[in-house]
Every structure is written in structure tokens, then in C-alpha cells.
């Protein structure tokens, strides 16, 4: 039942006003600025260039490099997070021994500051004094260039992302698993369905809506990645691990090229929207089939 009482405006307006003020202001501001050639250092008076900034950006190899890097990090990290996270959630749900102890430990990483995690990762990935180097030395793989080689650095960043955010997937999937009805499994049990068949026939399809939502959230969040990269490699070596947010930060805050940075952030917004819409469109038939 919905009530209708003028007091509802008192309830909702504070939140709407704050979000409007902090999101619409900057949106309009940077939208209009993205059509200008506008620098603060050295100060040049704004000049309208229409799509000039966008055209320059689309021809800039560093921009495409940032897009590819960010996409690689997001898709590989989220894919592995999902596989590991779903597996651990299944195991925890099956009441394996010591399950209670695991829960606290598993929740921890996602609550920690990414910058602090990245600092710790830098120590662990240290090629001469780090514990990982010592461990790999036992297999004859000493002094690997963890953060100084482009491919290795990317892999290390992905590893840290997985370490930090798999708990989120575990948490969500576990909560989802606990809402599944039991009678379906009892019926499957009577039919002598194997655990493997039960998973693909029942668990996976029933978990699909939650999976889709969780992966969606993680993908969008991963595209914003900045702190981890900022501390671990600073985008280096060269620009090998530079993500979109980091690229925008370098352009905007180091060079104060306002028009260019605004255009960049709008392209970023468009890219995220395209990815989000495509993802939802691809999944929609699978989600609706079951209803």
C-alpha cells in the first residue's frame, strides 16, 4: 500500500538535492568544457573548438592503449574473480569443515584501502627482497621483473584485483545460494543426478540473475580502477599499465588541459555506457527465458 502525504517531499528532497547538485553541476560543466580549447597552465582564454578535442583524442594512441589496458584488467580480473568466488561460495555453502572461520578471513580484503593493499603488493612483488621471489627461487625462477616488465606488471595488477575483490563475489554468491529452494535438489537426488549434473542443471541457471548482477557491478567498478595502479606502477613501465582514469588524471591534473580532459572523461562515460548496455542486451534473453 502506498500512502500519499505531503511529508514525503521532506523525506526525499535532501537526498535528491545533494545528488543533483554534486552530479548535475559537474556534468554540465565538463560537458560544455569538452567543446572548448581551455588550458589553465599556461593560461589560454577558452576558445570553442566543437569536436576538436574528441577528434584529437580518438587519434591518440595513448588513449587507445589506456582503453585496451583497462578492458584487459577488468575482463580478466572479473572473470577469474567470478570463477574463484563462485567455487568458494559453493564450498562454503556445502558446510565444509571450518567454514565459520573462513568467513571472517574471506570478508577482509574488500574492506581494506586499495592504496594500502597496493603498497603491500609492491613489497611482496619486490624482485630481490620479496617473499614471492624467495618462493619462486625454490623452483629456479629468481628475480622475475614483476613490476618493471609491461606484461608482468599487468598480471600483478590483475592478481591484486582478484585478491581484493573475490570476497565481494563470494559474499554475494553465498547469499544467493542460501535462497535456493531445497526441494529441487531433493528431486534431483531421487533421479540420481550427479553433483556435476546438479550444478549445471539447477544451481548455475538459478544463480544466473544474481551472477549477472554481481559481474555487472564488478565490471563497472573495475573500469574505474586507479588507486591500485597509481601506487603499484604509476602506469609504468612507460604507459604499459596506464588505465583510463589514470590517463585522465595525468592529463588533467598534471597538464591542466581542461577541454581535453573533459572530452576524455565523456568518452570514458560513453564507453562505460556502451559496455553496460551491450552486457545487459547480451544477457537479457538468458535471464528472461527462465521466467
Amino acid at each position: 500500500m502506498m500512502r500519499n502525504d505531503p511529508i514525503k517531499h521532506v523525506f526525499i528532497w535532501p537526498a535528491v538535492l545533494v545528488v543533483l547538485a554534486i552530479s548535475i553541476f559537474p556534468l554540465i560543466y565538463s560537458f560544455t568544457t569538452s567543446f572548448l580549447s581551455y588550458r589553465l597552465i599556461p593560461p589560454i582564454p577558452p576558445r570553442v573548438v566543437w569536436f576538436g578535442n574528441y577528434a584529437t583524442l580518438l587519434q591518440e594512441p595513448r588513449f587507445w592503449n589506456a582503453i585496451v589496458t583497462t578492458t584487459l584488467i577488468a575482463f580478466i580480473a572479473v572473470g577469474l574473480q567470478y570463477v574463484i568466488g563462485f567455487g568458494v561460495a559453493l564450498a562454503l555453502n556445502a558446510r565444509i569443515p571450518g567454514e565459520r572461520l573462513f568467513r571472517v578471513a574471506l570478508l577482509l580484503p574488500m574492506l581494506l584501502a586499495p592504496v594500502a593493499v597496493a603498497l603491500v603488493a609492491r613489497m611482496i612483488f619486490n624482485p630481490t627482497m620479496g617473499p614471492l621471489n624467495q618462493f619462486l627461487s625454490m623452483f629456479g625462477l629468481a628475480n622475475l621483473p614483476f613490476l618493471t616488465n609491461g606484461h608482468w606488471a599487468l598480471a600483478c595488477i590483475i592478481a591484486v584485483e582478484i585478491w581484493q575483490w573475490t570476497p565481494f563475489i563470494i559474499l554475494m554468491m553465498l547469499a544467493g545460494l542460501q535462497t535456493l529452494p531445497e526441494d529441487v535438489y531433493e528431486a534431483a537426488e531421487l533421479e540420481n543426478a550427479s553433483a556435476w549434473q546438479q550444478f549445471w542443471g539447477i544451481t548455475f541457471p538459478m544463480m544466473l540473475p544474481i551472477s549477472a548482477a554481481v559481474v555487472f557491478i564488478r565490471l563497472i567498478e573495475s573500469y574505474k580502477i586507479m588507486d591500485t595502479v597509481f601506487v603499484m606502477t604509476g602506469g609504468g613501465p612507460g604507459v604499459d599499465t596506464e588505465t583510463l582514469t589514470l590517463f585522465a588524471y595525468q592529463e588533467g591534473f598534471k597538464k591542466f588541459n581542461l577541454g581535453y580532459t573533459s572530452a576524455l572523461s565523456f568518452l570514458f562515460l560513453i564507453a562505460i555506457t556502451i559496455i553496460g548496455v551491450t552486457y545487459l542486451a547480451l544477457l537479457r534473453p538468458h535471464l528472461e527465458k527462465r521466467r
Partner: protein
Amino acid sequence: MSGQGLTGLSSWSRRLVAVGVLAWCLITAFPLYWVVVTAFKTPPGVVGGPTYIPFVDFTPTLQPFIDLYQGIRGEFFRTFLNSTIVGLSAAAIATAIGAMAAYALVRFEFRVRFGAGLIFFLLALGGYLLFNNSLGFTRPQALLLAFPFALAAAIVANRLPLPGPILGNEDILFWFVSQRMFPPIVTAFALYLLYSEIGRLGFQLIDSFVGLTLCYVAFSLPIVVWLMRDFFEAIPIEVEEAAMVDNVPSWRIFLGIVVPMSMNGLLATFMITLAFVWNEFLFALFLTNSKWQTLPILVAGQNSQRGDEWWAISAAALVAIIPMMIMAGLLSRMMRSGLLLGAIK
């Protein structure tokens, strides 16, 4: 809640699964253990290669923490205080007004005409360009003038029979949540420019408590509204209806009945918001420079300043991590009571 999905497995495969989970736990725990022991190391304990067990491999010392407290590596004490103050107030404000909005969306009916929303956006954009380009106002002045003007016009327009779809509560909720999709860099950079231009008008927002808290409140609201809506929906409406029969005003129903009944949800939401603000890096990087610097900025700075002084880096990271470790313990206790189940329906 029995052993679904794994019931058909033999005891051997169950053991295999347990080993797999244990391996993941070790991977999760090792970096945490590493940072804790490293924070108590002396320089020889670090440069001589990796050491693991206190008192056996190396002699633990409290020196890194004493250095931190004395401010040898940046003003840790004040930064810690900044983070605490900003985090607590932003989380409290966001939870309060977010819970109010969530309650309104669950219990009251809202109808917003799509046309009114469009009018708001176009008038805000057009008004800004007009005030700035033709009437000679500065950019923040133009924005501040265009905003109330567009808002008032939109509210009036909402009462007119405009063509086009009518948006309901679900759409308003979607609008709130979709704010999270925004790449924060879009906002952070524009907000920095806006804040600094407002600062030139005489009202300091960059590197100030108000500016930072306002921005964090706005960015926590989507999560708060989303989480709290589920908690409120789970509350049986009969209690509220009984109160309404007795003519209790809505605000007293909310404060006196609904808020106490959803205390757990409010607490969990508050803690999640606090964790988000405590760890936030990008906005703090743009919007603070010295006085209101938060912990993540200082921690990130340790990296470039002190190349291999791992004991100092670890102690710094630990200071940023420990409050959240305590929160993880509290949250997991709540999680066990099925509290967070509702959040993902």
C-alpha cells in the same frame, strides 16, 4: 540450508574442496600476515631477505609506530583524525538522508514526468550558457543561478499535463543507483574546478571539511538508498498501518517505529559507507592538499618518499587497515545472522 550442490560428492572430493578453500584462505591471509610482521621489523630484518617469524627470524621493534606517531613521515596523527572525522560525518549524514529517501520510495508514491526531467536538464544547461556567455557571470555563478531556476521550472512543469512517459518510484531508484555507474574521474575533475572557482568567490571548498564531506555524502547516497530500500521493504507494514489509524504523523512513524525496527540495517549500511569513505582515494586526491588530507593519500605518498623502508610503509598501511579489520569482524557477525541477504534480492 543443507549441503546443496555438493551432496552427491564422495568424502574424497569433499576433502579436495576443503583443501581448495584452505588454499584460497592462505592466499588471502598471507599478505595480511606479511604486513603485520613487517611493521615490527628493524632495517636489518628487511634488507637481509624475507623474514617471517618474529623472535625467530628477527627481533620485533615498535620503532616504526613511534616514528609514525611523532610525525617523522608526514603528519599521521592529524591525517588519521581527518579521515575519522570526515568518514564518520559523511557516513552518518549519508545514512540519515539516504534512509529517509529510501523510506519515502518504499512507502509513498512519486510521479515524475519525463518531460519535467528533460526541462530541468535543458534549462540548467541553457541557463548556464546564457548566464555565462551573454550576461557576463563567471562560470560557478552562472551554474548556481541556473540550478534553482531550472529546478523551480521543472517542479512547476511536473504539475502540467505534459506528453511523454510518467516515471514512478522504481525509476527514481534507478536514477539514484545509476549515479554509481559514473566514472568518478568525470565528477572529480569538474568538482575540483568548480570548488576552486567557488573558492575564488570567497567560500573555501577545496581542502575543507565541508567540501570533502559533501562530495562523499553525494557519492555514498546511491548505495545507501539501494541497501536501505531492501531493509525497509522487509518491515511488515501492519505496524505502520496501526499507527496511522491512531493518526500518528508520518515523521513520528518513521522515527519512532521504522528506524528502531531497522536498526541493524542502518548500522550495516553505516559501516559499509564508512568503509567506502575511509578507503576513497580519487576524490581526496583532487579535493585536498594539506589541511584535510585523508589517510589513503598519505599512505600512497609513502611509496615515492621512502623507497625501501618497508617497516615504515607497513606501519603506515597497517594504520589505514586496522580500523577496517575491526569492521570486518563486526560485519561478518551481522552477515551470519542473514542480515545482508536482503541486499541482493
